[in-house]
């Protein structure tokens, strides 16, 4: 198994700041948005994230410094903040990992889950979370905006649908289905 300190290119007695700086530098180099389609970069990105996670988790076992996102005393960022940071950099897998370990399902938790699931391509799940966030905090404009963005196809679809399809009666609809499913139905 590769040494996480080696992956980040820092010595074992490096401080928290040095580790974070090294991580950020590597992220800027290998970020998937800056290297579209590059599989080596994607693999390297995963390695870097894993190494950073390992060092963070190893902080509690007396490695000599306190992990920034340990969520314990003296940490500067809450888990939701770090999840948000991951989402902003497009690292939805890491964000989802943090979010699923949080027990308190606040409006903000639902909002961040919606964004992470949306990035991951889980549109139905994202929509459910966005709707929940708005339900819990109806006055929050950010949550409303996200829900609107996730539903934008929906309203456009129905506007276009009215033009394309007439409102028909039940009988006509039934016949349309039957004709449509008969093989070689066009007997005109």
């Amino acid at each position: 198994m590769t040494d996480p300190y080696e992956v980040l290119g820092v010595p074992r007695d490096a401080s928290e700041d040095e580790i974070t700086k090294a991580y950020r530098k590597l992220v800027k180099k290998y970020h998937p948005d800056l290297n579209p389609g590059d599989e080596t970069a994607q693999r390297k990105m995963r390695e870097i994230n894993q190494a950073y996670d390992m060092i963070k988790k190893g902080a509690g076992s007396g490695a000599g410094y306190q992990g920034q996102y340990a969520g314990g005393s003296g940490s500067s960022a809450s888990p939701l903040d770090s999840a948000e940071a991951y989402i902003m950099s497009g690292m939805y897998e890491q964000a989802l990992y943090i979010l699923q370990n949080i027990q308190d399902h606040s409006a903000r938790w639902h909002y961040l889950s919606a964004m992470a699931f949306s990035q991951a391509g889980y549109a139905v799940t994202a929509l459910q979370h966005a709707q929940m966030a708005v339900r819990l905090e109806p006055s929050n404009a950010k949550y409303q905006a996200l829900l609107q963005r996730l539903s934008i196809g929906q309203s456009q679809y129905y506007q276009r649908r009215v033009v394309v399809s007439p409102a028909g009666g039940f009988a006509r609809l039934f016949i349309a289905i039957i004709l449509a499913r008969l093989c070689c139905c066009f007997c005109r």
Partner: protein
Amino acid sequence: MFGYVNVDLRCLSDSAIKQYKSYYCGLCHQLRRQYGERARWILSFDPAFLFIILSALEREQPVCDVNRCPYHFGSKRPCVCGDTARYCADVTVILTYLNFEDDISDDRSHRAAAMRRFYRRAYEKASAAHPRLSRKISDALHRLELEERAGQTNPDIPANIFGQILQSVFEYNEKAGRFGYALGRAIYLTDAACDFKSDLKHRRYNPFVCFRMSQLDDILSNVYGSCAVEYEKLELYRSKEITDNVIYSGIQLKYELLKRLRGKRHDRSI
């Protein structure tokens, strides 16, 4: 898998219907030419729609020849032909055969087993022509089966797998992959919504197991919306009336009918 990509016959003009026929008949004729008479019987709207969209994405006008149809008293019919027709015929056979295999593992259907034997030679020929595609689809169906057996409660996961199947099919044209993915998701989730009530009643797996029926309308309309967003990004050179009809109306027909049937039953029972 099949049966959700419909055309809404209530609102297609006569010229659009003629155009549709030429593609349907073209695919039918191509299936017979490549795989024999039996391949004609597996034709349906779904692969015909694939043929129409892939043709519509090509700048060059498709070639049309005229053939006699034994199922319409030997009358002459215009038939679109060409490379796209050949590809769609291959895909029709591959998808139909793999669908039978899926049916067999789902409910050990004797009919599906018989159909599988009947179309085995045709499938072997089609998958030899497209080995990677056939392998991708069969792997994806296998993954889908695993998720369904495990009782996956997140509907996006199996829907995305099915989306990947259609994405690989539509990638015949590199611009159509994303639309194929969105369409695959829409088809899978429509199927799940239509089967929701009966699956729950018979304790069968349904991706919406953690949802209520009242949420399905909203979810489906969102999924159709995403599909339409990808559809509008396509640059179609012809057949727009038909494809608009399918995307904005046809794909919902079955679900709409079921909803109305449910509504009528509910009214009668009050």
